[in-house]
């Protein structure tokens, strides 16, 4: 594995996405501010903004770094470099995660810190963590589909499935007995149901990434 090549490709993707990321980070932090200082209405509006921004930046990244290479015909340029399929796939998956995760982690950490600091919403801790990881799962699904298909249509479909997934998971998690109980309470609780939910999400993330590598390794045409 030529790590220098992988690093170059990741820096390239960061360079072209940096404005969108920094702008989204600013928007995300502003949303956190609305959550903190916006009162009851602001709390919910800020939360919606925060989730929307996290989903949107994941989609922007995937569209820009994966689908965009094919659509803008820059894939031929990238693949003419001394790079193997494995290095290209690694650079794209790792690059998207390395760009997305710090952004995602900053906003999730801010949200968790907010919950920890406000005893009245302590009960939302487990739900928030699970939903944050669900957004990461949805982003990984988009990355995998975009990498494998390089198709805008398929990636948009994956985006829709991911967004539906967030809503469905949110509904289910909010009704799981081990999480539902005490969700609106003032005590931070972490029960086995929460651990199982997280384990399922991380298993899905692993499945998407390993699956993408597997399919990429069997591809015969890269242009």
């Amino acid at each position: 594995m030529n790590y220098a090549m992988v690093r170059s490709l990741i820096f390239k993707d960061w360079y072209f996405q940096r404005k969108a990321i920094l702008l989204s980070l600013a928007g995300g932090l502003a949303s956190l501010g609305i959550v903190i200082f916006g009162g009851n209405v602001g709390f919910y509006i800020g939360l919606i903004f925060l989730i929307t921004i996290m989903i949107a930046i994941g989609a922007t990244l995937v569209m820009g770094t994966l689908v965009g290479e094919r659509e803008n015909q820059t894939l031929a340029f990238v693949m003419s470099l001394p790079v193997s399929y494995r290095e290209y796939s690694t650079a794209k998956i790792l690059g998207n995660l390395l760009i997305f995760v710090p952004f995602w982690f900053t906003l999730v950490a801010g949200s968790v810190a907010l919950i920890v600091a406000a005893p009245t919403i302590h009960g939302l801790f487990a739900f928030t963590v699970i939903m944050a990881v669900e957004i990461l799962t949805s982003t990984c699904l988009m990355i995998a589909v975009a990498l494998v298909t390089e198709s805008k249509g398929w990636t948009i479909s994956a985006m829709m499935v991911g967004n539906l997934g967030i809503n469905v998971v949110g509904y289910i998690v909010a009704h799981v007995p081990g999480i539902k109980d005490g969700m609106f309470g003032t005590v931070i609780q972490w029960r086995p149901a929460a651990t199982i939910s997280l384990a399922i999400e991380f298993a899905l993330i692993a499945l998407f990434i390993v699956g993408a590598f597997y399919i990429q390794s069997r591809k015969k045409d890269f242009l």
Partner: protein
Amino acid sequence: MNDLCVQFDGVSKRYKHFSLESIDLQLATGAVMGFIGANGAGKSTTIRILMGLVHQDEGAVQVLGHPMPADQAAAKLDIGFVSEDMRLYGAATLAWHMAFLRPIYPRWDQAYADSLLLRFDLKPEQKIKGLSHGQRVKAALLLALARRPRLLVLDEPTTGLDPVARVEVLEELMAVLADEDRTILFSSHNTKDVEQISDRITFIDRGRIIDCDDKESFLDRWRRLRLVLPPDGVVPRLPDIVQVGGSGRLPVLTTNRFEPAMVSVCNDMGATVQAVDTMTLEEIFVANVHSRRERLTA
């Protein structure tokens, strides 16, 4: 020691509506090969297999001593590739592209890149999206050449250029190529472009290599014989005639193995040879393709 830069042995690739069949191709180190075919003949597929971007279903490919596609990363370190469907990053400048490639290629030659900037009249601080199509092609050539590649692969680089830009690009390319001794594969459907820079020519049609030879040999051995037949005369049966055109008493024979003795044979058979015309590479290509297609349908 293997002095072949590129070697295809029985390479096949099958798609639903197109297949590349049993491609045998050799490109000697230091040669400039023109790869000519009509649109959809299989030029780009062949080149993608050469670059390791498409995996062959059958056969073996060696590029600069590396088996492809397995060892493509190592091979591509020594290849400069410019393709008609390749785009640079529109939002970035040419300077950014050079800075991006510099650490990737150990033989990157910045002084040479700077000289090419002047020669191609390009401004490094200009964004790619602000360049004309001709300038973009020149920018891509600069980025490929400054790597100091052992093999330069140009896949229809002049397609889509207006006539002025095409001539400019070709002139610049020839000037640059005159500087150095490189192995080059230049594909195009435009025979005039290929003729200018190539010393060896390969024709491809419908997924098969139909002919391959030195350019001069092609031009030497292909001829058109314009005959005048006597009343009730018949067209002389000569070996190596690939096409019979013309009409009535004025047939035109196209041969791919011209020998001066053919003239006397025609005369002996009662036909008068009015003229023996040389053929352009384009005429040779078209005649070659037509004769093959006629043989296939016969």
